[in-house]
């Protein structure tokens, strides 16, 4: 099985996201009514995805952790202002992305990368890694994967903040063009254009590792 076929399916489909949005609205109503503990459900539900997005924007574990925590705190403090015009997920993501962009602009010159472990149980990525590192022994394979991660992070950090955000949301978090446009308050055309440009840049940076 080629890796491409395994990766065709997005992480979360649109109908699933609609169901999620309904469930979230119910929890949000409970929090707004004073059930503070209900907010924990939202934290547990979104912390991993939010962390993944922020981590891929900052490439730093500590910064990502702080930014995600701050995003949850901001959402908690402002939950009474949340009127349900968009889904809670979009609202929370917007808070996190705005915080991250603001952080990246302030610390433009400070870059400390940290690498996360790749989950061996994640089938699609395991297949990609297997295809890349077939016939290599364990130690060599681990070193190659680390090298790959570093090169990926470097290439991502060379992108502008806006381009990096679009690539992260589309390729890593599997959001649709429409959802990204809503999050970034821009048109779908702008999202497509940024994505195209960003991919060209990444292709050029990672030409040794990827096929055209």
């Amino acid at each position, binding site marked *: 099985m080629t890796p491409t076929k395994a990766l065709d399916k997005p992480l979360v489909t649109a109908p699933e996201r609609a169901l999620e949005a309904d469930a979230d609205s119910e929890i949000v109503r409970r929090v707004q009514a004073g059930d503070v503990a209900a907010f924990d459900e939202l*934290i547990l539900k979104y912390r*991993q995805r939010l962390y993944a997005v922020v981590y891929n924007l900052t490439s730093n574990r500590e910064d990502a952790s702080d930014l995600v925590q701050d995003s949850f705190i901001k959402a908690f403090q402002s939950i009474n202002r949340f009127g349900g015009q968009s889904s809670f997920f979009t609202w929370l993501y917007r808070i996190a992305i705005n915080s991250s962009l603001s952080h990246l602009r302030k610390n433009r010159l400070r870059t400390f990368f940290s690498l996360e472990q790749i989950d061996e149980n994640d089938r699609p*990525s395991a297949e990609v890694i297997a295809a890349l590192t077939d016939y290599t022994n364990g130690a060599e394979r681990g070193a190659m994967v680390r090298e790959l991660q570093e090169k*990926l992070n470097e290439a991502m950090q060379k992108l502008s903040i806006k381009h990096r955000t679009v690539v992260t949301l589309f390729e*890593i978090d599997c959001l649709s063009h429409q959802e990204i446009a809503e999050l970034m308050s821009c048109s779908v055309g702008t999202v497509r254009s940024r994505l195209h440009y960003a991919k060209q840049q990444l292709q050029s940076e990672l030409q040794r590792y990827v096929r055209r």
Partner: protein
Amino acid sequence: MKPPFPNSKPTLEELLRVKRAERPPAEFWKRFEDELRAKQLAAIVAPRRWWQPLTALVPGRRAAALAGVGAAVAVALSAYVRFPAVQPTVVSPEAITPALTLAHSGVPSAVAAVARANHVAEIAAAVPAPVVVAEVLAASATPVEGTAHEPLLAASLANPVRLKFSEIQVHPPQAAMELVLPAANLASLRTEAGLPEPLASIPSPRDQRVARLANVAEFAMLAVPVSAPVRERVTPRDTDLREREISRVSAKGDRLGFSF
């Protein structure tokens, strides 16, 4: 040069999706939760600015800044409202018309006086120099027998805001009742209490007419922007207004006309 990955190269999209599998270890989430709890508690306990609840009323990104400015404006406005003496008041012609109609329709003077008590304060507040107008009115106020509040009315024009409250508190209940009760009720109450009927003291239709016209003159002077020289000319003639038979009072522009 040896290629970094000997097997088939993945596409860019495939390579990027490897990043989906990057996950922090389990202990990271334990620490994350503890830190988040601490921050959440700090956020709950931390004092909030007095205007921060108002941000809920303002939509948009600049809610906090706008709410701060808005709150400051609200405080300034409330201070302004608490001192109405400096507040410009505009009295519409509709507010004046009922009083003029009452005075003009020949109803007993006591009723006209009540009507005047209700409207004179508003009219006086609308005139740029209330003190001057009060003086003019005090000089030209119609003396209607039995209306004990007349001097008070004229004097209170200098401070129109206190008019109604001070009348009720300072004066005897009877005078206060005259201000608030319709003439018919007042008459029946007077009869029951054995008090003299003030309307009976108006001797003749001529006097009634004179009083009525003088009332009209008062209101006309307030309703039109009468210049100071005109006021000065009218005030000495106040006695003439009552003693001579006036057939007509007219107001046109800043001029008042009296036909004898």
